[in-house]
């Protein structure tokens, strides 16, 4: 606001910065960060995006053919997941919403496990063999997982661990009190947290402008007293750069940061949604021009870091991985029916033993998603 009267003095002032290195046409601006000068790093980042997209495509196909339950696709949002996956250390802790598969794959979660969960099997969240078995499972309710980061980070700080928590959510989640309660207090204890707002412009049928009248989601950081910045979430280089900086700030005792990553949900909200009901084809077409894979490929190709043969190989590899995961998922034997009792408590109380016995005696009921 303007200075309201002559006696008023300015007590605080805030600015939001937006970072983009790679524009939608694949042109670079500014001085690239060190990791972006490493050819193998760049190729790996691109490959992870392709692999994730192949998985996503397979998952949707499985749902469309009745082999998977409702699935939330990450089409168009691959760059943020890849950037985050590479920016985090193994010992850091990820508290995801859903749709952050790329990050999870990089952290060692099996593709099969993501399919298992959406396929109606809790064992998918066991993260068997993951390099980060301390990561949280997917969280379906909106924003309720974000304040868990406060307790997790508090515990890490109490134990003097040099670990960082990343809690991610979408633009819609910023409307919830849970989000604010976490953002509001993280700085009180200078907790090592990065809040990542994955602004994909749509919360089912509601555009982000209907979530808040604020100009950016990044500025919500300022109400909590922490730095907030915006990054082009479809620029994998910028996303990794910004997230790495925020994560290292947290690790070195600098406290929390909120990063808003601008992207676009190219797919329906989930396979149970039809986005044509509420947004125009023109808008989606324009968003495809912004695709994170397209721009990275254009730039890598121009730099002679990537060839048609590389592309063919990456797509084949991605498709084969997804296919193998799908096969593993489909063939995964059902859990015993009485397993529904086995993780309610550390030890099932005597009061419920008869129910477990009844289920066990009745045997499998069959039925899928």
């Amino acid at each position, binding site marked *: 606001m303007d200075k309201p009267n002559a006696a008023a003095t300015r007590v605080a002032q805030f600015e939001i910065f937006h970072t983009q290195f790679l524009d939608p046409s694949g042109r670079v601006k500014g001085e690239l960060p060190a990791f972006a000068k490493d050819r193998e790093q760049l190729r790996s980042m691109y490959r992870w995006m392709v692999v994730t997209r192949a998985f996503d495509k397979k998952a949707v196909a499985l749902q469309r053919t009745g082999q998977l339950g409702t699935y939330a696709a990450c089409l168009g949002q691959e760059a943020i997941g890849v950037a985050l996956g590479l920016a985090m250390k193994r010992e850091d802790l990820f508290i995801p919403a859903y749709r952050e598969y790329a990050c999870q794959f990089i952290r060692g979660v099996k593709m099969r496990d993501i399919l298992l969960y959406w396929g109606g099997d*809790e*064992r998918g*969240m*066991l*993260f068997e063999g993951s390099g980060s*078995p301390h990561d*949280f*499972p997917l*969280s379906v*309710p909106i924003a*309720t*997982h*974000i*304040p*868990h*980061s*406060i*307790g*997790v*980070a*508090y*515990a*890490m700080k*109490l*134990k003097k661990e040099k670990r960082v928590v990343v809690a991610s959510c979408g633009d819609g989640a910023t409307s919830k*009190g*849970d989000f604010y*309660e*976490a953002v*509001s*207090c993280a700085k*009180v204890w200078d907790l090592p947290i990065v809040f990542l707002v994955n602004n994909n412009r749509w919360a089912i049928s509601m555009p982000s402008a209907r979530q808040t009248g604020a100009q950016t989601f990044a500025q919500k950081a300022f109400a909590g007293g922490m730095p907030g910045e915006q990054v082009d979430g479809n620029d994998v280089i910028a996303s990794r750069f910004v997230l790495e900086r925020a994560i290292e700030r947290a690790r070195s005792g600098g406290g929390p940061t909120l990063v808003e990553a601008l992207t676009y949900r190219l797919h329906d909200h989930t396979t149970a949604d039809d986005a044509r009901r509420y947004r125009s084809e023109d808008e989606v077409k324009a968003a495809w021009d912004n695709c994170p894979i397209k721009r990275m490929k254009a730039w890598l190709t121009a730099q002679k870091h990537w060839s048609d043969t590389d592309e063919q190989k990456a797509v084949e590899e991605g498709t084969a991985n997804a296919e193998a995961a799908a096969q593993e998922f489909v063939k995964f034997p059902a859990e015993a029916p009485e397993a529904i009792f*086995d*993780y*309610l*408590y*550390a030890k099932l*109380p*005597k*009061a*419920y033993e008869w129910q477990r016995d009844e289920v066990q005696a009745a045997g499998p009921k069959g039925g899928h998603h």
Partner: protein
Amino acid sequence: MANLTIIEAINLAMNSEMARDPSVVILGEDIGKNGGVFRATLGLQEKYGTDRVVDTPLAETLVAAMAIGMSTQGLKPVAEIQFSGFLYPCVDQVVNHATRLRNRTRGRITCPMVIRAPNWGGIHAPEHHSEPLETTFAQMPGLRVVCPSNPARAYGLLLAAIRDPDPVIFLEPTRCYRLFKSPVEDNGEALPLDTAFVEREGTDITLISWGAMMHETRLAADALAEQNISAEVVDVATLKPLDLDTILASVAKTGRCVIISEAPRAGSWASEIAANIAEHGLLSLFAPIMRVAGYDTIMPLARQERVYIPDVERILKEVRKVFEIAPKS
């Protein structure tokens, strides 16, 4: 052995477990310097420091969520919610995460945590400070709901709740916090979290209750004794999981049963207990199971709260009905 009030026994349990186990942390609003609005945490911050006795911002959802986060990292958080009506913002966190993380991750991530709160009315507090919340939580799978009714049980059950590997809701009888003293031995021994207590043996009728209503139930048993009626008094103590065996054994012995609950009658835990007795103990009954419960109204403000809360007379009235149907032979 010291004579303690319930609030002192609760303080002692936390103090003693914090000394024993460095992973125990306490969190909540005004629990540090102020010692909690009821002084349940009095002196703990002074003794264990601000890192382990954490004053939180004024946000109940956050308190529950923070406890969840802490509990997944090897800490054993004991969260305090100031008044039962402010437990509602915690319900989402408890039902969607605390009770489910073990199940959702097939045992990979667990939530050993306690949420303590004063529960029930009778202290002339403002609106929302006197709600009976036990039924809300007792219906949630994966949870333990504990309602102590005397100092020794408050001590032993709170120790058990803190040591339990799963989330526990610990609802304390506000109006009994300083009502009476009784001996508590600080021996570090926990009580079982799946067991009802027969605290007074009798032969003619079983009176079943928990939490604050145990006080009126005890007085009713005293009044009945003067009328030569021998009442057995069962303190359910842990509502979830429910110790049906103890309840059924008592009813089988007496053949008569009245259940006393402060929570609204319809769908209350008294109803759950009555349904179970009807299913499994009907043939040992001489008369219908009667419930004495809060009315199906909103908890009134101070002037009318005694209209709502069952008193000894309401308990005796139902007992009389039972003996009219099935006189003592």
